[in-house]
């Protein structure tokens, strides 16, 4: 049940986390420009409210599975941005020891089970993690983030059906930014959208504004409570928009400029800011939060840039126990 009176501190915290995600990803742009981030990086600038509004309702022992666009989810779940930046720069101390990069960012300690380079793959990992939760007798839940493009892959059907028939504690979050790479998703997606698909598989679904962290937070709070109570899987379709291209280097010329400009007027950070100002937070306090976020990520950037490379013998470690390379 959406709470009409969110606590100001909670909104402030969400605002701060969104600022931190945005500042982190701005540093990823800079890192790419400076040749420090070598692989493709997919940014969630404009979509921060989804990661924050969802993860703000989770415990550390709840888990999330993500997709290729995972920095926001990872930070919102509590990972250390410096270790993440080291990962993206391929350095010693990277959160995945430099082996994964942006597309495989993960932090199991905080319940972040990994980004994924395969669209839709996280859905099945999430239902499996939910099976563990259930078998191990916890009341933790699992959240799975994926994009609007993933609803056309087989694992969407198989994973949602699976969660339903085994009544697993999963929240599926379809983060709809209207595009899958260069393709406007609705042109290649039959039927009336992700929520209808989920319901056809027996999973109750809600549709929400993914740029309003306040209402999203409240809505997700209710969903998480229901799932934690044993009610089985739920589905959430959130509508949002990515401000920049599919990857850092994509100029995104396939999108009408007016559409992009219009979408930017619904920037989730600006909206939270407007709410906070309306409700008595001082501009100077908000400014300090934004500056702190930038400082934090700037420091992460510099530490990562100055970090050493991984030790070369590590290339052979963590492959497998039996039959590992010599």
């Amino acid at each position, binding site marked *: 049940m959406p709470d009409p009176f969110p606590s100001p501190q909670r909104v402030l915290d969400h605002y701060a986390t969104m600022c931190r995600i945005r500042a982190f990803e701005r540093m990823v742009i800079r890192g790419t420009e400076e040749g420090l981030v070598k692989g493709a990086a997919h940014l969630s600038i404009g979509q921060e409210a989804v990661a924050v509004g969802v993860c703000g309702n989770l415990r550390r022992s709840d888990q999330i599975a993500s997709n290729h666009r995972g920095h926001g989810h990872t930070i919102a779940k509590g990972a250390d941005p410096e270790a993440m930046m080291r990962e993206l720069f391929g350095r010693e101390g990277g959160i*995945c020891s430099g082996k994964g990069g942006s597309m495989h960012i*993960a932090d199991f300690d905080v319940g972040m089970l990994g980004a994924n380079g395969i669209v839709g*793959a996280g859905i099945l*990992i999430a239902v*499996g993690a939910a099976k563990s939760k259930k078998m191990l007798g916890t009341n933790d839940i699992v959240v799975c983030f994926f994009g609007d493009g993933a609803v056309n892959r087989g694992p969407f059907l198989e994973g949602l059906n699976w969660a339903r028939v085994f009544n697993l504690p999963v929240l599926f979050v379809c983060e709809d930014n209207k595009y899958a790479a260069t393709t406007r998703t609705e042109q290649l997606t039959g039927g009336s959208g992700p929520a209808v698909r989920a319901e056809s598989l027996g999973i109750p679904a809600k549709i929400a504004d993914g740029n309003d962290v306040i209402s999203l937070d409240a809505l997700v709070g209710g969903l998480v409570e229901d799932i934690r109570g044993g009610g089985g899987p739920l589905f959430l379709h959130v509508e949002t928009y990515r401000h920049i291209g599919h990857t850092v280097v994509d100029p995104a010329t396939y999108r009408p400029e007016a559409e992009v400009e219009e979408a930017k007027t619904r920037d989730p950070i600006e909206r939270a800011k407007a709410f906070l100002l309306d409700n008595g937070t001082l501009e100077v306090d908000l400014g300090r939060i934004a500056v702190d976020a930038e400082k934090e990520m700037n420091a992460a950037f510099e530490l990562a840039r100055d970090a050493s490379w991984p030790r070369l013998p590590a290339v052979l470690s963590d492959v*497998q126990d*039996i039959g590992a*390379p010599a």
Partner: protein
Amino acid sequence: MSVMNYSDAGKVALAECMRADPTIWAVGEDLGHGGVFGQYMGLEEEFGPERIVSAPISEAAIMGSAVGGALTGTRPIVELRFADFALCAIDEIVNQAAKARYMFGGQAKVPLVIRQPSGMWRASAAQHSQSLEAWYTHIPGLVVVMPATPADNYGLLKAAIECDDPVVYMEHKDLWPLEGEVPEGHTVEIGKASVLHEGSDVTIVTWSKTRHVALEATKTLARSGTSVELFDLRSLWPWDRECVLASAAKTGRLIVAHEAVRDGGFGAEVAATAAEEVAGLKLARIGAPRIPIPYSTPLEDMVRVTAETIIGAVERLA
């Protein structure tokens, strides 16, 4: 010590492991009714449907959910029914299970067993007969095991379940009824070949059902005075290089025989390794021709490796 068949040996191993470790669960289609070959008969009764999970026809989800489970503290045993159906879950096996530990820098392991009943069986034709073990040996992160006897199925399935890596575990469909002794508390180490016959003239390396064919050939050859050293690799990754190389160096002749297609089969890896390491080695590989498996019995029989084929190859190498 007791006598049991290959199918039951796997079942007993699984049941013993499940009794000892409540985090183990098995998942696959029709498991509640014993599985398609009866290898799970009675297990749902003992362990309940939460641990013997009967799945919808969703191979990707069967496999993918097992990866998710393995990453988060439980130990799934996946039953894929026919190795051919694993092709509906390859992303989950190769891009997810095999790579997760490495990609995440060792943050989690992926302890799971992927059972894939393999090989030709009763005119099952092209989509129910394949032997694709070579594929999995080529994928970093995977362990590959192919037992050929009840004792090995018992010992190796236990080892696979206990291991923290994703193990592709390929039982041969034609061996289910094979009876044999399974010593009490029997253990088999993954990566160790079994020596079926010692000899000095030629080394034969094989695995899975072809083990039995090669043993027949070995006995026939012994009668005509050719002394064969015969190995069943049992596990293909890791495989027992030391043992094979030492024998090949001793005999100077090596034959690798398997049911899979010869071209690009794992026999090529064994043969190439031996040729790199043993100077002057004579060698031959035996496998199926590069054709899909035909249905009609006389055609299907032409694909099978026989004792005669092996004997012929030994004679040509002499």
